[in-house]
Structure formats: structure tokens, C-alpha cells
């Protein structure tokens, strides 16, 4: 196949040459990430196993067979948070070390596609993690919340969105540094404190056997606000992390 258009027919238009729509680009990136994860199983199994082990450690550390209320909340969110950070650490590693972000940068796509795709990837990891960890939590530590499940799912969703946004940003920052495995959690933990606050306060009334309450609206609102603000910030600054 010979080279296409000569100089005379080259378009000199003003608008961007974004041949590929955002949705398609995000789809392509997401598929690639999930496919790589399926093949290498580097993130999700590790995250899940880590969560299970942590519950066991908590059993021994707290010397309890069952937890409820604030104690249950604490165990659950600390475990989920640290398991999530494991996934965050690996989020951009395959791209930085093998695939090369350059290939993406040269394609006629909006760079936001990478941000969205990675956030969705991390979100998928978190959902799978929770599918394993939350039932295990109920089982291992006899936590009673079956009746409050829908509310708990809502809290989990809002928290996951926040972790996905901040985690992606932190992962992108950390992957270019020499001490990437250390800096990821160091950057991520303070930034995620508001999520812990909101998620813990919201789910605390749910994890009780008798007279379980509903999550106070203010915590859900706080989580949603956090997700929105950081979603916008990530959108604004992400491009600057990709270029050279």
C-alpha cells in the first residue's frame, strides 16, 4: 500500500484531528487493561488475598470472633483501603514498563481517554475486590449487615468512585518516580482520609445486629462532593502528567 495523500491534498483544517471518538478510545484502553490483568493476574487476586489475610490478622489483633458498629466499620474500611492501594501501585506499571504510553500519545485521541479508562479499570478492580472481601468480612468476623445491604452498597459505590479518581491520579504521579511503591501509599493515604471519614461514618449505623439505622445523608453528600471535586481536578491536571 503506497503512502496516501500528497501535500497538495493535505487538510490544513483548524479543528483537531480526533478521528477516534472518546468512547471508543476509552473502550479500547479498558479492554486492553482488563485483558492484561486477566492474563497476568497481577492485581486483583493479590488485592483480594490481602484483604482476606488482613481480616484474619484483625481477628487475632483484636482478639474477637465478631465485630459490629464502629469496630466493624474500622476493620472493613482499613482493609479495603490498603487492599486498594495495592491495586493503585500496579495501575500504570505495565504501560510504563512495556506498552509505552507513547503509542497512546501519538494516536488521534483525546488524552482524557487514558484518565477515564484507568479510573474505570481501578473501579473494576475495586468491585471485584469487594465481591470477595465483603462476604468474607461478614463470614470471618460474623458481621451482621444482610438487611442493610443496599445501603452498604451505595456507600461502597460512592467510596469506590473517590478511590478510583484519587488512586488513578496518585498512580500516575508515582509511576514515574524511583520509589514508586512507597510514594503511592504515602500520597494516597492523606488524600483518601475524607473518603474514610465519609464511608466509615456512613456505614457505621449499618453494621449492627439490632435496630440498624440508615447512613446519614450528610456523609453520602460529602462522599459525592469529594468524588465530584476530585473528578474535576483529575480531569484538569491529568494531561500534564502524560506529556514529556
Amino acid at each position, binding site marked *: 500500500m503506497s503512502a496516501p495523500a500528497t501535500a497538495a491534498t493535505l487538510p490544513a483544517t483548524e479543528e483537531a484531528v480526533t478521528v477516534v471518538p472518546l468512547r471508543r478510545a476509552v473502550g479500547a484502553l479498558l479492554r486492553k487493561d482488563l485483558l492484561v490483568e486477566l492474563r497476568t493476574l497481577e492485581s486483583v487476586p493479590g488485592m483480594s488475598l490481602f484483604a482476606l489475610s488482613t481480616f484474619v490478622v484483625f481477628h487475632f489483633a483484636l482478639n474477637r470472633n465478631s465485630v459490629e458498629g464502629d469496630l466493624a466499620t474500622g476493620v472493613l474500611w482499613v482493609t479495603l483501603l490498603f487492599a486498594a492501594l495495592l491495586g493503585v501501585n500496579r495501575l500504570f506499571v505495565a504501560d510504563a514498563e512495556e506498552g509505552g504510553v507513547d503509542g497512546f500519545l501519538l494516536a488521534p485521541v483525546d488524552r482524557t481517554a487514558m484518565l477515564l479508562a484507568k479510573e474505570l479499570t481501578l473501579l473494576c478492580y475495586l468491585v471485584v475486590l469487594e465481591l470477595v472481601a465483603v462476604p468474607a468480612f461478614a463470614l470471618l468476623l460474623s458481621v451482621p449487615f444482610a438487611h442493610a445491604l443496599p445501603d452498604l452498597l451505595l456507600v461502597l459505590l460512592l467510596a469506590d468512585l473517590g478511590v478510583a479518581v484519587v488512586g488513578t491520579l496518585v498512580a500516575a504521579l508515582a509511576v514515574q518516580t524511583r520509589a514508586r511503591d512507597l510514594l503511592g501509599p504515602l500520597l494516597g493515604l492523606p*488524600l483518601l482520609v475524607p473518603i474514610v471519614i465519609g464511608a466509615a461514618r456512613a456505614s457505621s449505623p449499618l453494621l449492627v445486629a439490632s435496630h440498624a439505622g440508615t447512613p446519614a445523608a450528610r456523609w453520602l453528600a460529602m462522599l459525592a462532593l469529594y468524588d465530584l*471535586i476530585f473528578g474535576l481536578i483529575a480531569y484538569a491536571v491529568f494531561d500534564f502528567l502524560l506529556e*514529556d
Partner: protein
Amino acid sequence: MYGKGLRSLSIATVVAVVAAFTLVFFYAPLEAEQGFLQKIFYVHVPLAIIALCGFVLGGLFAIAHLRTRDQRWDLRSYVVIHMSLIFALATLITGSIWAKGSWGHWWVWSEPTLVSFLIVFLLYATYQPLRFSIEDPERQARYASVFAITAGAFVPMNFIAVRLASQYLHPRVLGSTSNLPGPMALTFLVSLVAMALLFATLCKYELTAKSTRFKLRALRRRLAGEQAQRGARRRSAVPEPHSSPALSARVAGGGAST
């Protein structure tokens, strides 16, 4: 470029600090409940306010850096954040002293401002490790700016979140700056101004020192570069003495387009 005005700023700072000290020790009345210890309020709260403003300012400078690509904004952002981190540490220490004096504990979770400061401090403490673990200087500056913007936006969010979460065991004397009687308000204001001037002066010092060092290095480099170029011309890559005049002119002159 940063040097001018440094002396007058320093003088103003000294004057303000002395004035603040005088007012704190001789003018402001002793507070009924806490006595002499309460005077730490005049140091602790201005430190807190200035540190927070500094962090937000660092974020604003970072935005300017990303928009203009001018490295000077990055330098300003770095210095301001660096200084704010020190002021934040001082905030934590003075807050802790006050807590110990007032309630007998070196740390209290019930004071939302203090708790928020701890989180913010932990976050910004990663700023320098982040910077210095990226080798490429341009990338380092860019990533630092992204961090400064994210963290700067995080500061208000964090304060709201912690405030919501705190259980108030005691009335918030530590943080409340409203409803201050006249003499206290004046003292507080002067302290605040003194702290702001101190911050500005220290930042200016650091900016001047760093900027001078960079200029010196740039001059040294240019000198070395010119010397190297003169040497390079002597050992040009064209071995034949009878190369075409056009080509040797190009080699000597650094090459025009063919």
C-alpha cells in the same frame, strides 16, 4: 531579581514581630479560664492561617507554572510550600503545647483544626520526596505542580470533612477567632500581620538565594559551553582539509538548513 526590597521587608518584619511580642506580653489581657497559656493562641492561630494560605498559594503558583511553563513559578511554588510545611509543623507543635496545658493531653482528636493540620502535614511532607525521586528536571517540576494543585484543592475539602467528623468535647476556644474583645482582637491582628511578614521575608530570602545560585550555575555553564565550542571547532568532524567551502562553513557556523 528577588533581592530588591529584601531589606525593607526584613525591617518591617522585625518591627512587626517586636510589636506583636510587646502586645502579647504587656497589652493583651489574661484570659479567665486558661491564664497565661492562652497567649499561645496569638502564635498558634496566625501560624495556622498563614500555613494554610501558603499551601493554597503554592497551588496557585503551580497553576501559573503549568499555564506559562515558566520555571520561575515552579520555584515560587516550591519555596512557598516548603515554608508552609515548616509553619504547619510549628502549628502542630504549638497546638500540642496548648492542648497539654489546657487539657493535659499532648494530642486531642476533638480539635478539628489540629487534626486537619496533621493530615495536611502528612500530605505535604511527601512533596519533597516526590520531587527528588524524579530525575528529569522538567518532569519533576511538572509533577510537583500537579501535586501542588491537587493538594491545594484538598486542603479545604479536608477541613470540611474533619470538622464534620469531630465530636466536640470542649468548646472550641482553640480555633475561634470571632467574638474577641477589643484588646485581644488588636493583638491578634498584629500577630497575624507579623506572621505574614515573617513568612513573606523568609520566602523571599529563600527565593533570592536559590535564584542567585541558578544564575551563577547558568553563567558557569555558558562559560564552559563557549570554551567547549571553541575547542570543538578546532577538532571538527571534517577530516579532509580540502572539503567544500560550503560544507566547512556550515560545520563552523553550526549548520543552516540544506
